[in-house]
């Protein structure tokens, strides 16, 4: 018996990935390629506040949806919040099936690195990892 592997929220995020794309002058940028998923994030800050957050993903619908969710959630919040991002939270809120935890941890890595990058070199566009 097959339940829908995608919840309503995942379907909506997947269908409307408004934050997919790039930034011309990002405050920080990160890309990770591991565990069958490739994630790129870019952030543009206005002082300590995240102004714009963009993602690119090659991966399963959960990875895409999670990246979009992160972007939606963090815009307008302090950069420091990125470092507190937890995979566990998004696993539950989307929700994401247990067996895909690995991919969401890659996203966690990327988000935290992005937070790090944005703090260390506020105007740099370097890749982390």
């Amino acid at each position, binding site marked *: 018996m*097959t339940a829908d*592997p*995608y919840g309503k929220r995942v*379907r909506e995020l*997947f269908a409307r*990935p408004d934050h*997919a794309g790039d930034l011309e002058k990002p405050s920080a940028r990160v*890309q990770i*390629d591991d565990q069958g998923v*490739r*994630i*790129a994030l870019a952030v543009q800050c206005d002082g300590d506040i995240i102004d714009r957050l963009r993602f*690119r*993903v*090659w*991966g*399963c*619908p959960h990875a*895409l949806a999670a990246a979009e969710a992160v972007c939606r959630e963090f815009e307008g919040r302090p950069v420091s919040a990125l470092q507190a991002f937890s995979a566990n939270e998004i696993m539950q809120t989307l929700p994401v099936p247990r*067996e895909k935890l690995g991919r969401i941890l890659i996203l966690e890595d990327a988000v935290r690195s992005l937070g790090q990058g944005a703090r260390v070199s506020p105007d740099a566009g370097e*890749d982390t990892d």
Partner: protein
Amino acid sequence: MSNIAEMVYLDYAASTPADPRVVDVMTPLFGAGGDFANPSSGHTAGRRSSAHVERAAGQLAELLGCKEEQLVWTSGATESDNLAIVGAARYRADRGRHLITMPTEHKAVADVFHVLEKRGFEVSWLRPDDTGVLDPANLEAAIRPDTQLVSIMQVNNETGVIQDIEALGALCRERDVLFHVDAAQSVGKLPLALASLPVDLLSTTAHKVYGPKGIGALYIADRPGCHVEPLIYGGGQQGGRRPGTLAVPLIAGFGEAARIARCEMQENHEHLRSLRERLWSGIRDLDGIVRNGSDSHSFPGILNVSIEDVEGESLLLALEPLCVATGSACNSTSQEPSSVLRALGRSDLLAQSAIRFSFGRPTTSAEVDLAVARYREAVARLRDIAPGRAA
């Protein structure tokens, strides 16, 4: 499935709807007023029930080109495959413990061989070429004096690739090796004349050919040495080969489906060919697209394509409302790349992006056009979202 407005069903290799004529045959047999009695009962009601079974056996035998007594009713191709392989392996265990099959078989065959491997049988897994076709010379080289059974499917459920069962069977017959064919995807779709084919055991199922789910059959040639031990025991139905109350309405439905398939085979085949041609022409120019499986040796109801730089699971979701498959239906919830496509030499990534489109009698050109548009759009969108490969 133009009739469910919000979907476009292109997964006829996973299951077909029962033909309306099949439903008409079955419906009156279920309830009171119909011939619902147990066909093993000797009384009038039982005999009336039994007459439906006999008619259906005649219809299926005619489609397969065999005799009615050579057919055993089962619950589907999975059971038929198990009965054929385990049943023959047990019956001929004295002859030797070497078996031959291919990694591109359906799980209902491959998994049985995996179990037999654990039980002390030795299995040779013959690889096809990169179009999915097995060269008979490879089979010839693999047959040994202790080989007791070869099992090779006719039409592959993921790629539609057709094996040359006549040539393969002839090699088996020469060496007195039993030859089993999983014909779940080919019965009613390709002409078969078992009486003159070197096939000993052939599995089939109704729900792939516009009959009901839950009924199948195994053909057992009446040649010396061709016999299977039963998988289940009980009342003496079907000469003890497969006991249990016969599911009369399903059997009657399978019979009718066989009759229709026989009459309309040619016409259906042309319909499917034109649909596949239309779909392939609509997408073949896409960058990095790869067709999986032979073009010339394949059943036209299936088109399987992989595409570079697109993730399979997301592609499948982006294709909605198309109902299509990645691997075979029974794998569709697992994340593993198809072992069939790996056997064709596809990389994991490419195998993982594979989409199986499969067409049926009800499929329209409009549905195919929608599939083309949707596929192109989904590929473009997902590629757009993906980051460049080099970081």
